[in-house]
């Protein structure tokens, strides 16, 4: 790629051993895969992709939205919605507060109206940094409202998932969000509207076992961990080591649960093409 050629000289990398001593907080980050120390600003510009090994750093909800929708098109929905503590679970409100402070988000998903390649969509983006992107009442409700808005406006729905699963602290109420989100997707389906589900690292548990698996088209980011039960629990249950590459995006593609593995750099253009293919009315006999 030409772009990469021009970028390379500007890209600053420092080897781990020499840089370790004095890494100013936030200025540099270490690649979790190859341990390369990379400059945060460069990382942000390159869609959080490690230049050395090509693996992806986690992307926050707003970074993802910025990278995906047409500039200036995003109009957030239900921005103020926050969790309460349905089970009266000890320390849960504090956990929410500290997640809010750390991520500058209200909850683990941001939803809104936007355009991609000029086509209107309703989009939801989960943030893996907010209590592991877990789904409680707020995530369930915002996904449901996003789908309802898509039906109301008769536009496609796109959801980027990144989740450790249902939120334990909301117990059975979290489990019921699976039913709720699937219920509203049944309505979206009946309305003949497109739902594109994008699975990013990680998508597991109750999110995989509900709305994330119900896309008309399911895309996944390379290397993303995707599955139902976490690998540790499976290993403990079956007392067996898991095979290499188990529960990755590529594994899911091979087993028929994902349509396409799409690199981060091509995600927006892929979505735009898919939206374009669905933009003119389908053929109806008579």
């Amino acid at each position, binding site marked *: 790629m030409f772009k990469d050629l021009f970028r390379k000289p500007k890209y600053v990398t420092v080897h781990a051993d020499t840089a370790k001593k004095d890494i100013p907080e936030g200025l540099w980050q270490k690649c979790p895969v190859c341990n390369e120390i990379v400059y945060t600003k460069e990382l942000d510009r390159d869609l959080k992709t490690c230049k050395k090994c090509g693996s992806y750093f986690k992307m926050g909800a707003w970074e993802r939205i910025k990278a995906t929708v047409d500039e200036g098109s995003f109009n957030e929905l239900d921005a103020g919605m926050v969790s309460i503590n349905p089970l009266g679970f000890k320390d849960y409100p504090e956990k929410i507060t500290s997640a809010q402070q750390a991520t500058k988000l209200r909850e683990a998903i941001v939803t809104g109206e936007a355009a991609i390649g000029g086509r209107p969509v309703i989009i939801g983006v989960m943030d893996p940094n907010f209590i592991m992107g877990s789904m409680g*009442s707020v995530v369930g409700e915002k996904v449901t409202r996003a789908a309802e808005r898509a039906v109301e406006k008769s536009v496609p729905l796109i959801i980027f998932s990144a989740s450790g699963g249902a939120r334990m602290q909301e117990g059975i*109420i979290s*489990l019921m969000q699976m039913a709720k989100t699937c*219920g509203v997707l049944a309505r979206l389906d009946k309305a003949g509207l497109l739902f594109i589900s994008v699975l990013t690292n990680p998508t597991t548990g109750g999110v995989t076992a509900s709305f994330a698996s*119900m896309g008309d088209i399911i895309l996944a980011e390379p290397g993303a961990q995707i599955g*139902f039960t976490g690998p540790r629990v499976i290993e403990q249950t079956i007392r067996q080591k898991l095979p290499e590459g188990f529960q990755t995006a590529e594994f899911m593609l091979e087993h028929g649960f994902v349509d396409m593995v799409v690199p981060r750099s091509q995600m927006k253009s892929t979505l735009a093409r898919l939206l374009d293919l669905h933009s003119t009315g389908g053929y109806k006999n008579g």
Partner: protein
Amino acid sequence: MANILLEFEKPIVELEAKIQELKNFSSEKEIDLSDEIKTLQNKADSLTREIYGKLTPWQRVLLARHPERPGTADYIKLIFEDFFELHGDRRFGDDPAVIGGIARFNGQPVTVIGHVKGKDTKDNLTRNFGMPHPEGNRKAIRLMEQAEKFGRPVISFVDTPGAFPGIGAEERGQAEAIATNLTRMMSLKVPVIATVIGEGGSGGALAIAIGDHVAMLENSVYSISSPEAFASILWKDPAKANEAAAVMKMTARDLEELGVIDEIVPEPLGGAHRNKEEMAKILCRSLKKSLNGLMKIPDDKLLEKRFEKFRGIGQFVSG
């Protein structure tokens, strides 16, 4: 009479043994001990009431998992007629952790589906401890769609620790199977009655529990995960399951208060396993009542109400 005893059941069972002894003695020796027996029986009853009146959530978990607790197969035998078991998901295989088929309930043809645990170790291995693979969930939805075609109400019994965590289960799409069931059940045009009869564990339970009417037996539990997994995930200590059960709000009363279930079906004194026939009678009455009500509701209204019921679950501040 139960053979396997939970710790808190012991005083009751010991007292009952004493009563039996007196009865035997009385008939052998032809001595009238009816007053003494009556006094002891009253004592046993009030002791049972006392112990069962203040069960902790963890004790209910133990009851819900009691090896002698009646399961789907028992209720099919005791409540339904003409049960015709159907097998397989038409995709990969037949999952013995889920049984389903056609039967008559109160004269009405219905489709009945439920999780099955084993009665002993060998049986449990066959039934995989009631933990469905994707095939089990796919069999369930196949039978439900068949029920829809022939206008049969669906009656489901939930009794699973959870969907099975294994390599094959992941390869064959455990998550997709559950998600598909949830989505399809939301638009199934026949009445669906789901009853948690023992353990309602996580997505595996939910996958057959999208009901117009969702009930729980008094001593059953229904939760996001087992208390062991909950303690392990949040506190890194599975041994704290007892404490987890206390804070998870997983008993029938908790779920009724949270608005997640519609009915608590009472159990005979001492729990379902102490009197299976009586339990079946009570359950049968509950099913009859809800089915009669649901069969009067037109399809579109039924679907609307089913969706709204689950749509309404969640607690948040709109901001």
